[in-house]
């Protein structure tokens, strides 16, 4: 035990001597959490710039406009009043949606001549596109209900009768787990898990390369210490800081970003524990194999975006080809991001999370075995000679 603690102490000294590594471990995760929290701080898309081209100027057309004005999702841009201006505004992204009410709209509607209102939205950014489509449908449904109600009043039906008719078949859309459609609840957990992944992997991947660059790794190899003790001693500081960062970032986002978090603390801790073990061990293994710190740094840095995209955290796994899903299932981030979302947002219990716990446990065992399996055999003298001269 003493030997392990000595190595841990030695590694900690290295971390404190390398100022950038120190910042990377203790400051960058929090900085990223702050940034990502700020990006999604509003959470819900509101105030979508919408232009209304009213070519009819009738009471009915004003009613339509009022419905869009009353929606908290849209903000009407007043100076766009013609179709060419609408086209230009959309092309320059000044507005993201538009409503075009044709000439003689009210008259044609009265005569049942088949007139229609055109609603357009910007499909070039599908975060805008999907949301505008949904918000527009909400406004249209509300407008139609309001109109049906006034029409029935015109037919002489009483208020109670109208309510009864409108409520004969009511459809209630209940959105579970994220009823406000908040992007904060949707994205932030995954991003935090990615930050933990990258910081842990990057810091652990330098632990052996650093020794190699200083020609000190040979001391470890020639020492009588078994491989597992070297691994444990050198990884312990990264494991502790990794788990500390995991807890810190979860606390930070729940305290300052006001994100919804539910579920069992024990399960969160268990997943966090397994996640840090698998990443730190994988980082140590990468460090054993990497030529130098620059090589490890460069390749690990490039992993972030592909990891997030193939994991199915954003674009659903049902719509990703099987071979990519199979590949993604070998990555701990895929399991962790989904598992954590299932605990924090859906409040799922251990029963539903069994596959995640099993997958991460299996990965942890594999990664630890790989990390401790390095041969404590020195290079042959001739090889060392060739490498140096």
């Amino acid at each position, binding site marked *: 035990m003493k030997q392990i603690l000595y190595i841990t102490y030695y590694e900690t000294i290295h971390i404190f001597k390398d100022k950038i590594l120190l910042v990377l471990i203790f400051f960058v995760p929090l900085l990223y959490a702050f940034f990502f929290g700020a990006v999604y701080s509003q959470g819900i898309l509101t105030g979508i710039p919408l232009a209304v081209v009213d070519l009819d100027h009738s009471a*009915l057309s004003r009613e339509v406009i009022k419905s869009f004005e009353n929606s908290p999702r849209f903000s009407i841009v007043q100076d766009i009043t013609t179709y060419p201006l609408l086209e230009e505004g959309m092309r320059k992204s000044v507005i993201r949606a538009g409503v075009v009410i044709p000439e003689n709209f009210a008259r044609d509607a009265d005569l*049942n001549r088949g007139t229609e209102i055109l609603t357009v939205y910007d499909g070039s950014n599908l975060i805008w596109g999907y949301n505008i489509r949904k918000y527009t449908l909400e406004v249209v449904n509300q407008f139609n209900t309001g109109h049906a109600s006034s029409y029935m009043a015109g037919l002489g039906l009483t208020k109670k009768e109208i309510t009864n008719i409108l409520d004969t078949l009511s459809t209630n859309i209940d959105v579970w787990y994220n009823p406000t459609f908040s992007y904060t609840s949707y994205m932030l957990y995954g991003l935090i898990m990615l930050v933990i992944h990258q910081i842990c992997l990057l810091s652990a991947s330098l632990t052996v390369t650093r020794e190699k660059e200083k020609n000190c790794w040979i001391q470890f190899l020639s020492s009588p210490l078994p491989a597992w003790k070297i691994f444990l001693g050198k990884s312990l500081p990264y494991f502790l800081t990794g788990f500390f960062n995991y807890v810190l970032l979860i606390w930070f986002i729940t305290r300052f970003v006001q994100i919804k978090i539910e579920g069992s603390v024990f399960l969160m801790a268990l997943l966090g524990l397994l996640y840090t073990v698998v990443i730190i061990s994988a980082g140590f293994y990468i460090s054993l194999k990497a030529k130098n710190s620059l090589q490890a740094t460069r390749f690990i840095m490039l992993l972030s975006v592909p990891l997030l995209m193939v994991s199915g955290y954003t674009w659903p796994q049902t719509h990703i080809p099987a071979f990519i899903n199979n590949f993604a299932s070998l990555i701990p981030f895929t399991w962790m991001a989904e598992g954590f979302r299932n605990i924090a947002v859906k409040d799922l219990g251990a029963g539903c999370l069994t596959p995640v716990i099993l997958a991460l446990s299996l990965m942890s065992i594999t990664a630890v075995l790989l990390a401790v399996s390095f041969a404590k055999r020195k290079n042959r003298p001739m090889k060392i000679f060739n490498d140096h001269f």
Partner: protein
Amino acid sequence: MLSQCLAIARREFFFIWRDKDLRYILLFGPLLGLLIFYGTYSHQVLKDIPTAIADLDRSRASQELVKNIRGAENLKITAYPESYDELEDLIKKGTVVAGVVIPENYGKDLSLSRQTRVEMIVDGSNMIYATNATSAMLSVSHTLSAQTGVKTLVARGIAPAQAAAAYQSAEFREEAWFNPTLNYAYFVVLALALNIWQQCCTLTACMTIVGETGAASWYQFKSLGISRLRLFISKSAAQIITFMAVALPVFFLAFAVFKLPLRCGFLLFFLFSLAFATALHSVGTLASSIAWDPVNAARFGMIIALPSFLVSGYTYPLESMPGCLQIIAKILPQTWYFQGINLLAFKDPGWAFMSQYFLAFLIIAAVCYTVSAVIVARRT
């Protein structure tokens, strides 16, 4: 002078090629990124959202309703749970994303014009699914309410034409401009691949200064008396040419093979990418001038490059971010680039409109190169 510049540039090309890791990263990083992302988004459009219907009534009317829902756009009925609990379990486990519960006595209540309520449930934990599922549900809900309303009015003795008119106030037709099929691959694949490209370029640019000052060859340069400006310009030109050379196969695959949209002319797109590559190179050079070894230079560069895509507002809109973050985002060349490629790929707003983006790149490059020059002059 020109021959000296060419010799330095040739040396730089050789250095980039000799650095095996950098060579692989530049040659294969962006291409691999494009292939992975294109594969991931190969379904392109989010259709067939897994939906379950719990028909607790099993009447003729409820069967008709099931038939209606089956025909709804983007929904795919994959399960028919026997009870509400079973449906709840399916949503919890993520087997289905949406659910419809038709209550007991639905048919009876409808025929007696009694109130009845159909419950529609959407799993909101994945927003891409949730927004699309909700839109589909809203359309179904609108049609159902109208159909039932007309029937109820007719049953109360209102003329069928009048009953229909009550629910036909205005027809709304929707159009998605610039990306009419709401193709998600069109939206993200090119941007994500270019995000990998910019990260690879940042890693290369981070070597501009520290790669020389940290090596023994720096003393050779000093003793040869080559102007630092000439050395720097030649090295930078070689790197920027390399950036564009590795981007060309990505552009070819994206536009010619995968047929991703490009509304503007290729020349404008290429020049826009070139201007960005220069601005990005300046940021990498700045990181390189601050750092004292290549590892730290790579770290500095990537600390900026990694979150830049998210902060750029390409996916989640910049307008919805806090004001201070919008200002920070606008300092980064990535923000201008990703906003710009969206405009060029889908909208082609023209040279005049894009000039502000070119100006932003110019200012960023001028500031970063100047600061780098000052730092290097002080250090060496």
